[in-house]
């Protein structure tokens, strides 16, 4: 079957054009980060105090959108998922990295993407965070022999949640949608309990309606996915195109 996407891998577009198209894609990303409120370090940090749970809700929505799109386009035969670079798992380094990253986020108020987006809107604290971020990356790279073995340890290859849980991919997708919706509602509840709203939002009804409709669409798509076998989304017998440079850098 001839699939159209990924455009750069099927030869539909040249490598140069692919590079140029990264600008509009980055534009959409940066534009969305601003409107998510993520150029404000306080809004990011407040997530950890349940004062503003926008961060996890935005993250859930982005993941669900990306997930439904990625596997949906593969299901209808538009996207050849065996040509997509899927992230491999190094379990323990990623767990420790996550803990440290969380510390860095609540102490510094940003993550790299949001700090860059914030810096160009004039925020000095984002500039300082980025200087620190570059320093941290430099320390990691220059002293790499110290933690290189740990960095490359616990390698599991490309492993998905449905494989870990031994369920179909469609069921895992539906599970993620359910977790995202339940997580959103739970966090909203905690936020309202600890930080009750002092002035009611006049647009609240419209916002609830809009978001409810979007969530319903996601739930329906996730439900439909559950009826398809895993191999109609992704063929696990095709080797994923990831590559590991044992002592060096992987693309992300």
């Amino acid at each position: 079957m001839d699939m159209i996407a990924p455009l750069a891998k099927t030869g539909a577009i040249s490598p140069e054009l692919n590079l140029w198209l990264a600008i509009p894609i980055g534009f959409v990303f940066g534009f969305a980060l601003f409107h998510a409120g993520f150029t404000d370090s306080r809004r990011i940090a407040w997530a950890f105090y349940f004062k503003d749970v926008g961060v996890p809700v935005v993250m859930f929505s982005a993941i669900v959108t990306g997930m439904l799109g990625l596997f949906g386009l593969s299901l209808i035969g538009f996207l050849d998922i065996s040509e997509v670079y899927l992230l491999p798992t190094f379990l323990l380094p990623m767990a420790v990295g996550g803990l440290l990253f969380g510390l860095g986020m609540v102490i510094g108020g940003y993550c790299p993407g949001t700090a860059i987006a914030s810096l160009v809107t004039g925020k000095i604290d984002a500039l300082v965070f980025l200087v620190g971020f570059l320093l941290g990356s430099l320390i990691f790279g220059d002293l790499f022999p110290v933690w290189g073995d740990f960095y490359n340890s616990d390698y599991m290859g490309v492993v998905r949640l449905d494989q870990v849980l031994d369920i179909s991919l469609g069921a895992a997708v539906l599970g993620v949608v359910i977790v995202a919706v339940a997580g959103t509602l739970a966090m909203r509840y905690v936020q309202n309990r600890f930080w009750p709203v002092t002035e009611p939002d006049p647009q609240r009804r419209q916002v609830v309606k809009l978001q409810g409709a979007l969530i319903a669409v996601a739930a329906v798509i996730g439900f439909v996915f559950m009826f398809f076998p895993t191999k109609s989304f992704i063929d696990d017998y095709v080797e994923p195109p990831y590559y590991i440079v044992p002592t060096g850098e992987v693309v992300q």
Partner: protein
Amino acid sequence: MKFATRWPPVPAGILIGISMLLAWVVAGRGIGASGAMTRLVAWVQHGLFPTATEQSTYFGAYFADGAHPLNDYVVVLVLGLVIGSFVAAWLSGELRVEVLRGPRSSIAYRLMLGLLGGVLAGFAARLARGCTSGQALVGGAELSLGAWVFMMCIFVGGWMAAWFVRKQWI
């Protein structure tokens, strides 16, 4: 803050998801922000110490076969991110030079912790092979086990430290 400036979280998240989807469909890879930062430090250090950087176990890969570390997809992506955020802030009239912090925090305290948090996050992003965008969001949507563990650990780490830096934010 006006509605037009800050969107409700679900539509804002969907637009971020769409940018991820575009990268998969066009380039066959995910978006990310921290990779460009690593390439930037590799490039700066190479300007100062070319031989040592090329021989470095970690940074050396960026210079293999005469490659330029900034000539890469993730760097162009960040260029687009910069333009996108700037245009959005400009259209919303939110371009302002300021230090964002909680009501009880001094500017010096905020900047000191901003730097410290940056160092921690920079180190952590390298260890985890990605940050919130390149690892958590992209990997999360790909149902990657490592990405979900990374994401959960971000919130655990953040909640663990939140009490100690509360004066900075609330």
